[in-house]
């Protein structure tokens, strides 16, 4: 039995990885819940952003702040473009899954072609810096990630709950015809939402690149975990997503600490299966 310090450290790292899952899943949850689009290419966006950040900071030596400021609007536009494609061909929920699956493969190949399949590690002063909190080590990057995720998730929640755009989007998701009859232009709102979703993906990509070594094949590794969190948290529900992500993150970290790291995928995928079979109404 591992020591209590080790367990506490595991829980802490679970919270951090949960925060990353939430940040990665937010765009998927919003698009699935409010636009009925299952965007698997969101994972590809996250990694594309990660590699761009790696390229600009590590290779070209740009300032991190500048990179983030440029990446967010860029990916916003990418999200808008994707939504334009869906609207143009009136893609339904299921077709969106297939189209974005294809898009993921294309982007993955592109990444492999440019940056090869090798693992890339980004060296920043931040990545090795950690502070000691009692007996626990807290990596500063991860602490920032947690704070950013909290801020983004709460902002997304407030945006959906309290602004006109958010209310109109939720109305449209429940009944597009009636919402349209009350003057809601779903088309325009969908562009905004899809753009915001992709921008949160870019933000997640920054942390994927800064926090750990990155390789193209990891794209599919996070798929099950994040989708499990998205479904468990409730589609289009940022706060639920955050809670579910952190829960799964902790469960995974404890599984790794108590058994072997290679058993970790079992937790998230089994959880996904159980939710789908026992509580399919959540989706």
């Amino acid at each position, binding site marked *: 039995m591992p020591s209590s310090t080790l367990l506490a450290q595991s829980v802490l790292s679970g919270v951090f990885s949960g925060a990353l899952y939430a940040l990665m899943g937010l765009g998927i949850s919003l698009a699935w819940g409010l636009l009925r689009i*299952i965007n698997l290419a969101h994972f590809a966006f996250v990694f594309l952003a990660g590699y761009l950040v790696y390229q600009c900071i590590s290779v070209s030596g740009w300032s991190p702040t500048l990179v983030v400021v440029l990446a967010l609007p860029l990916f916003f536009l990418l999200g808008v473009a994707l939504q334009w*494609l869906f609207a143009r*061909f009136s*893609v*339904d*929920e*299921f*077709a969106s*899954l*297939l*189209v974005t*699956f*294809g*898009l*993921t*493969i*294309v982007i*993955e*190949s*592109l990444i*492999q*072609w440019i940056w090869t399949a090798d693992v890339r590690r980004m060296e920043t002063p931040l990545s090795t810096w950690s502070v000691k909190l009692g007996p626990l080590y807290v990596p500063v990057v991860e602490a920032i990630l947690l704070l950013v995720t909290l801020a983004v998730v709460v902002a997304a929640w407030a945006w959906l709950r309290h602004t006109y755009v958010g209310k109109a989007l939720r109305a449209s998701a429940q009944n597009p015809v009636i919402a349209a009859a009350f003057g809601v232009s779903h088309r325009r709102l969908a562009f905004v939402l899809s753009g915001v979703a992709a921008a949160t993906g870019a933000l997640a990509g920054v942390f994927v690149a800064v926090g750990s070594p990155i390789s193209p094949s990891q794209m*599919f590794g996070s*798929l*099950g975990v994040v*989708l*499990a969190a998205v*479904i468990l948290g409730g589609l289009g529900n940022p706060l639920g997503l955050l809670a579910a992500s952190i829960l799964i993150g902790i469960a995974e970290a404890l599984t790794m600490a108590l058994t*072997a790291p*290679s*058993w970790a*995928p*079992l937790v998230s*995928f*089994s959880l*996904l*299966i159980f939710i*789908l*079979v026992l509580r*399919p*109404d959540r*989706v």
Partner: protein
Amino acid sequence: MRPANVQARPVPGQRPAGRIGAAVAVLVALACLPLAHPPAFFESFLYLVFLWVALATSWTILSGYSGYFSFGHGAFFGVGVYTTATLTTAAEMPFLATLPLAGLASMLLGVGIGAVVFRVRRLRGELFALLTLAITFVLATIALNTPIDGGPGVFLSGVSLPRLYATPASTLYLMALLVAALALALAWQLQYSRVGRALFAIADDEDVAEVMGVPTFSYKLRAIGLSAGLAGIAGGIHAVFVTYVTVSETFSITVPLYVVLMSVMGGMRRWYGPALGAIVVTALTYAFVGGEWALAGRALIGLTLILVILFLPQGFAGSMSSLRARWQPRAARPAMPVAHVAPRPSTASDAVSGVGSDGAGAPFLRCEAIHMAFKGVKALDGVSLEVRAGEILGLVGPNGSGKSTLVNVITGLLHPTAGQVLLDGIDLARLPAHRAARAGIARTYQIPRPFARLSVLENVALPAMFGGLQLAPAEALERAREALAFVGLLDRAADLPSMLNLHQRKFLELARALAIRPRVVLLDEVLAGLTPAEIDSAIAMVRSIRDAGTTILFIEHNMRAVLALTDRLIVLNQGRVIAQGRPADVVREPQVIEAYLGTAAC
């Protein structure tokens, strides 16, 4: 994915013996190919083509036909791979003996998954896809962490092959060919069988298929078992072909991606569609071998998937027949006897005469104290009623009084919280819905729910195959023509339901109900939305159905029609029967007037 303007599939005729002969000749020729000593790369290329034909076709048997889109074909394939890998190495079994076991193991996995998942009504479409993908990763994790693989992978280089041909490559080629042929033969046989037609109906509207008599649960189990078993055998062969199996290669995203792509590309509602896709995609990948070209090939496949979904949602096979149908001028479509049969009693008795002869006036369908609660809301609160043979029993009530719930309970789609639905003394209340259809209960839907991708004729033939009569496909088509002639839709037999107007779609509902020669038909607001002239013709039709001996439960808001048609009337309010008897008397009862109009203010 489902554009409304797709052409109906051509109604397949008999199977010409010549085609079977040609298929066997091609098979024999391909099987003899190694005798001609083709170059080695050609044999291995054809091996890959046949492997993917087998995998894509087996995927289509479940996912293309029944619409249960699986991303878990890698799991079925992988179980086959590891069954053969484990048995040939650890247990030192002969290779050929492991293949049936590989198929069996995958089949058991498939049926096991189906037995759990197919009970959950919401697990269709994208959720089923995600679920099966998750199962793949769970199996991969288990294989990686247990002695099944353990991490380093399994070498099969020492496994000896049966010497069917001089070289192992030729032997494996032959085996892949045989599995591909088996998969194609099964898919072809299935498409034109009752089961296949039922699977197509399930893909369009599963609840309606069940109500029309299709045992949906067991048919879906058959489909997933067959699909998984074939993938397992293909996996077993492939384990020996690659000679070194690893978890990351076996359970990778490649298998589900490729089979989905091939099937979607080729067309997944036709037996030969996935094979077309498999040939094209394998040839494309083979053209881009090695280094960066492999990457370009992969990107190209992703791109193709996107383009096919956006531009060819029916795949090659579907688009080809759409084109063919477009070139065929409308007037020159297969000549069908155009018969706008005005419902006459003589025609009616041919077309609709009920099964057996019920003694006139004897109650034969009884609902006893039916309670139905949805999370505390009592939709039905102790409803008892009897339907007598040969009558038109009217069922009226304000909106929300429980009429539709009662219809769903009688047809078996909903199981009541308490109470019995007795037909000939058998309680149908706890049986699956298809049993009610087999017992001779048919219904129409207030908002017509035709199978969108089946032609009008096939829509009517389906219940004839499954409800009550249990006809073979050819007889069912004949029966469907009779029913269509009776409602005057025979000239629209080849059209898709989306090409009909509301009036015609309501009559299509009627034809589907009559096709089973029902003992009792539940007509759920057939008149709603019709013009006064259409209502008159509908009333005449309902009367002629009854005159032919079919009992009718007539649910309606239109009081003119109710008073004109019904022999007895039952009024439902808030889930209870508040009045019954002769229609003219019932409508004068104070509590009925109160339920409809409220009490007068004093």
